[in-house]
């Protein structure tokens, strides 16, 4: 079975708000569907919310993550460091953007999924603590499945 690596969450905000506006709202639904065809591995930091993956690998070193990325069929992440790490080793994947602009923060080699540019926040370089969470800014799981 082919493997998909998922890096589902952005870093915690410093204002105590639990939901980072960059975090994708439909992981559980998406993963449930993906598991029918793929082995799904969730990566991240210990304590992060689980998304129902087959396997969870927390607190890996950069080297371990690179190895995992190299060996997977593809990967999915939000706009977090993972997309940059995969880009740095030339492995393409899917990035689920919400309010941040993929033209700036994404890499054109990847499939950068965006509902529409009207959902982008006005001040792209502002801190995320000043942005509200918008579920409607993200594509639905069906759209992601279609891309895969």
């Amino acid at each position, binding site marked *: 079975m082919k493997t998909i690596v998922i890096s589902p969450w952005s*870093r915690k905000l410093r204002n105590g708000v639990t939901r980072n506006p960059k975090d994708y709202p439909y992981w559980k639904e998406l993963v449930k569907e993906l598991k029918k065809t793929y082995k799904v591995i969730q990566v991240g930091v210990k304590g992060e919310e689980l998304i129902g993956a087959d396997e969870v690998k927390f607190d890996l*070193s*950069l*080297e371990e993550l690179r190895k995992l990325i190299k060996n997977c069929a593809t990967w999915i992440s939000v706009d*977090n*460091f*993972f*997309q*940059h*790490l995969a*880009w*740095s080793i030339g492995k393409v994947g899917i990035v689920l953007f919400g309010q941040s*602009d993929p*033209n*700036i*923060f*994404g*890499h*054109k080699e990847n499939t950068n999924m965006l509902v529409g540019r009207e959902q982008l926040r006005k*001040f*792209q*370089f*502002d801190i995320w603590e000043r942005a509200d969470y918008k579920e409607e800014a993200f594509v639905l799981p069906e759209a992601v499945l279609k891309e895969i």
Partner: protein
Amino acid sequence: MPKVNGAEVTAHVSTKDRYFTTLPSCLLALVNQTVTPKKLLIYDDGEHIDLRQVSIYRNIFAMLDIKGIEWEVIFGDRKGQVLNHQKALEKVDTKFLWRLDDDNVAEPTALEKMLEAMEDDVGAVGGLVLHPTHFRKIGDLASNAIEDFDLGLNVQWYTFDEQKEVDHLYSTFLYRKEAGKHGYCMDLSPVGHNEETMFTYEMKRAGWRILVEPKAVTWHLRDNKGGIRSYNDEALWKNDKKIMEEKLKEWGITVNKYKFFVLDNGIGDHIVFKKVFDEKLRERYKDSTIVIGCCYPNVFEGAEVKLVSVNDMKAYYGNLDRFNIYKWMWDRNWVLSLDQAYGELYK
């Protein structure tokens, strides 16, 4: 106990227009040394007031008398501190001279600790010269190697524990008259920019060891008025800078070139920068030593760069806004990619 008796030391202070600001504190600190110098020379490049008529000085001079420290006020020619240092060097008959600036306040054990470090092969011993409002532990950047002269990060400005052997000193230090026989560079302007470096590095070249003893602490009550800050003609500094460049050439020193990068941001930004660095910037700055101040040094594992903390870079630059990629993009209404932005920021 010190290896050398204080009786073999003359302290000298060159002063200008600081009678009623830092000079009294400087002199009181001398009075209160655990090992007192034999003599104190005050070279006055200011208004030539008879300080004996001024209450605070009357008291300080009386205290010097009580402590058995001979003292003398010499009216300088108002030609700057270098001339005064040279005059002191020629005048004193003690084995050692302790030169102080008029905004230096030595802790009571400063002279004692410098004397303890004064082995027979040591030409000069400096202590820490700490700025009360910029009090910091030493970072990875500070260096008194002469090749790092341009860096301008003297180890004496920071706290650390172990004695260091260095190439040159700054500000105040104790030195051996014999080691200073080459004299001061008299071509310098009245501000005497880098005069201490020239003077002490010549000692090093003559085979003397130069030390920084961290247990000897002097506070630098930096004052924007008086002293060399009385001079505001930029040409004076330029003149001295040129002389320093000529000296470095004469000594055969190739000054290290540094290129600094600062990443005070997230790990993703570090990763993007690293790729841009590997693909473009390393080649662009191949003649420089690369220094990266960052939050995630593991991103640069194996890269041939010098990694320091963001705090080190703050100590060096003060404000790090010029390295803030997000501010840079915001200020330019940037619409291209982050990696392109890094390439432009550091072009």
